[in-house]
């Protein structure tokens, strides 16, 4: 699988140096960051040119404020900035750009509910439509919207990795609030979906990719009961879902929690042989990163 995934990434690199999420599309920050992480981790000198062009594409997406736009046709900085920062951080020469990206992330915050919504929550929390604490603000997908698990997970990983470069008071406060937000959104039996555990009184089920990401973001609390419960839940979810995205993030997660990932990698290879992950760049890149022992790029 490793060789095939590597060839896939080399072949699908766009002429502008970036990667798209699916074939024959415009380059995208998420896909480019993950492809760069995967290729860089191979430490293969023959890939120097591909990597250099990928870095250049990513740097061109950085706005003066430090965030990264999702594509060349989208104006505003995006949630994928966290992944761009993690990718650039791998290359020592790009540390300044990475730190600027981390500073931008530190300034971001999900939107609150507004006075009426908060009043309702404070007065009658048990009658709230969704079961969550709306006062906890993590990070949003797009500016001016609510906080959700995945963008918050990326931001937490970045802030934890860059904490010594950032304003101490602010970074400690944001990490703490982001962690509390993620724990608050956990599904009843452990694990996470996009960020709602219960709606209209009905329990919602967790997803393996978001569960693995949340656990990666919370990796510095390995013995927390919620982490332990969610690790168990993740293993159970993977009995049913063996997509590249689910297994890719899960392998990285399990490696960071010190677990033996050999059986999961075997499943990943098997899934790849079956569907080639439908040609989705992010899944192929994650699989290559996981299979080549690249979990450490997410270690905090």
């Amino acid at each position: 699988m490793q060789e095939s995934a590597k060839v896939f990434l080399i072949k699908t690199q766009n002429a502008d140096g970036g990667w798209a999420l699916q074939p024959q599309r415009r380059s995208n920050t998420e896909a480019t960051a993950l492809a760069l992480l995967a290729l860089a981790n191979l430490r293969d000198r023959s890939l120097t040119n591909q990597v250099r062009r990928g870095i250049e594409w990513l740097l061109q997406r950085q706005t003066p404020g430090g965030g990264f736009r999702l594509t060349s046709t989208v104006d505003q900085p995006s949630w994928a900035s966290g992944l761009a920062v993690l990718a650039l951080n791998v290359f020592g020469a790009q540390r300044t750009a990475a730190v600027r990206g981390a500073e931008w992330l530190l300034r971001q915050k999900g939107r609150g509910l507004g006075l009426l919504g908060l009043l309702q929550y404070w007065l009658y929390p048990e009658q709230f439509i969704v079961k969550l604490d709306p006062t906890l603000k993590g990070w949003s997908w797009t500016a001016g919207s609510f906080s959700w698990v995945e963008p918050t997970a990326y931001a937490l990983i970045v802030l934890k990795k860059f904490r010594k470069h950032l304003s101490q008071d602010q970074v400690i406060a944001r990490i703490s609030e982001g962690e509390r937000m993620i724990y608050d959104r956990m599904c009843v039996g452990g694990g996470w979906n996009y960020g709602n555990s219960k709606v209209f009184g009905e329990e919602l089920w967790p997803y393996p990719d978001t569960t693995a990401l949340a656990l990666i973001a919370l990796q510095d609390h390995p013995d927390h009961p919620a982490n332990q419960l969610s690790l168990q839940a993740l293993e159970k979810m993977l009995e049913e879902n063996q997509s590249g995205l689910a297994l890719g993030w899960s392998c990285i997660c399990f490696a960071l929690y010190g677990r033996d990932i050999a059986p999961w990698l075997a499943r990943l290879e098997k899934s790849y042989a079956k569907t080639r992950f439908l040609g989705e760049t992010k899944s192929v890149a994650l699989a290559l990163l996981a299979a080549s022992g690249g979990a450490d790029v997410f270690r905090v």
Partner: protein
Amino acid sequence: MPALNRRQFLLGSVAASAALIQGCRQEAPRWEKEAYRKPRRSQVAVLAAKSYDMPLREELIRGIKLFGLDITNKRVVLKPNLVEYDPQGVINTHPSLIYAAIEAFKSLGAREVVVAEGPGHRRDNEYLVTASGFYSILRDTKTSYVDLNNDDVRKVKLKSHFTELGSLYLPETVLGADLLVSMPKLKTHHWAGVTLSMKNMFGIVPGAIYGWPKNVLHWAGLQESILDINSSLAVPQFAIVDGIVGMEGNGPIQGRAKHVGVLILGNDWVAVDATAARLMNVDPKKIPYLQSAGDFLGNIEPQSIEQIGDRLDRFQQDFQLVPIFQPLKSVAG
């Protein structure tokens, strides 16, 4: 102070939407001239289809021909409703119907048929497409699938202004279609009342920009967003509603299966949705976005909709709604 419970809160939200939209109706229109595309009359076909095992391709060809659509050399984009996967549930447009639609449009001369969807909750497209059974039909029919969440996008100025969004990034695959076919499941919905051809367009809003869930639309107003998205899609449209087995109750995900045995087709999505709502014993005029769409996007009045195919009353059933939406019922059920 009395407790503001979930029911009151939601009723308040729907009432607020209705009041806001009604307010807009009384003032200057909230749509631009070019968004007006309401035909004088619309046709909606109701076709009996007992099960997913019957020859659906032939039934669809018969139905499409009723509208005299010229498919020759067209790029047809099928937009199913693929939201989530539950092995026990009936959440998604059935793959057999997608298969039949692919084959029907190909045999009617389409240059290309593409299946395109942008699921609103899950990013794991590979899982959804394989687990739901879509993958095997795409493979068997050699049909392209586009994940609209990750498609190339273009910034589109909205042609109506029920929300304050002003513009939205929308996927090139949809904007470049010669014919966009909305293929929703016949379902009730715990936020919108019903989810049909128009609400199905939430799936074209790209998650890579707006996230999972596409919460920006909820903040902007769900009913209002449905109107602004639909008014801004300047591509020829057709609808095929999967009402063979629908969903009632806590839709769009956790509701109960309801066998109806029907397909609803038409090229005016508003008229199709109004007809489908009536089939569920829901009054389309009580759904704010449908009522407002009836002013400029299509027809909701029965006298402006010519019913073709089979008789609607043969299939009419009382779909249960979440308690908050009981007032939407045409007749208490």
